[in-house]
């Protein structure tokens, strides 16, 4: 009787351990598969939208509206940016903080992206160095931002995505900024890794169909 009970309990414990390990595998690797597919889909939809007409200036939640190119992450590294930073949106790719500036505008073009799992778009955010280009591609223009600072902040410090980074949430912008936020350290949400940049310049796609020279840097 006791033997059966002990055996049953130990089998249960081993099973629970195996399920937990499988959950880790799911979070770290399997979610990548789902997210890569979702990212491919929103990217393809955006390219199609751009060829068929003028896109909506105010994208819906979960809808892609721009591409972000980060040469430091790899020569062809690019991700479609979707509107919104809720879990459903971030599963598709880096998400744009609702209400923050749009690419090239005065204010803070702010993005959040997962660090580990779900496509891991911002896994390597910590390798960005001051001066590195981050090129944002919209339907008609290329916006080249340059990285200025990298900081690690507490999750409560939402002023990093304010119109002027570090300023008031409803303050006036003092320039055109870029902010990218992700989890820090890896596999944890204890803090946030925050990379700021400033707009260096914008070029129209008619002037540079293949993109600015900054794409070839690093």
């Amino acid at each position, binding site marked *: 009787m006791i033997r059966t009970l002990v055996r*049953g309990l130990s089998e*249960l414990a081993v099973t629970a351990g195996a399920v937990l390990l499988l959950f880790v595998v799911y*979070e770290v690797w399997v*979610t990548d598969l789902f997210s890569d597919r979702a990212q491919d889909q929103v990217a393809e939809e955006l390219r199609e939208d751009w060829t068929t007409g003028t896109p909506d200036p105010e994208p819906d939640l979960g809808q892609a509206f721009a591409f972000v190119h980060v040469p430091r992450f790899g020569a062809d590294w690019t991700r479609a940016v979707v509107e919104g930073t809720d*879990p459903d949106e971030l599963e598709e790719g880096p998400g744009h903080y609702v209400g923050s500036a749009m690419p090239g505008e005065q204010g803070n073009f702010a993005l959040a992206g997962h660090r580990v*799992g779900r496509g891991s778009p911002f896994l390597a955010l910590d390798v960005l160095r001051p001066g590195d280009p981050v090129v944002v591609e919209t339907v008609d223009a290329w916006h080249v931002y340059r990285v200025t600072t990298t900081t690690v902040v507490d*999750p409560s*410090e939402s002023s*990093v995505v304010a119109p002027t980074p570090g300023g008031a949430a409803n303050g006036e912008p003092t320039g055109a900024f870029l902010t990218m936020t992700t*989890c820090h350290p890896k596999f944890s949400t204890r803090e946030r890794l925050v990379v700021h940049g400033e707009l260096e310049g914008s070029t129209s796609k008619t002037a540079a169909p293949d993109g600015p020279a900054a794409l070839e840097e690093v």
Partner: protein
Amino acid sequence: MYSWIWHHLPGPLPVRGTTALVLVLAVVALLLFVVFPVASSHLELWTPSL
């Protein structure tokens, strides 16, 4: 639990082995594609925004 299942699987050893493997794979698939996605969206383990 596992020995009970094993003893109740029908057929000779190779058939039982195959059935057991299929059962394990079915449970893994159920976890990966149904249970974990739902659990994960409720847990909200990773929040890269602030």
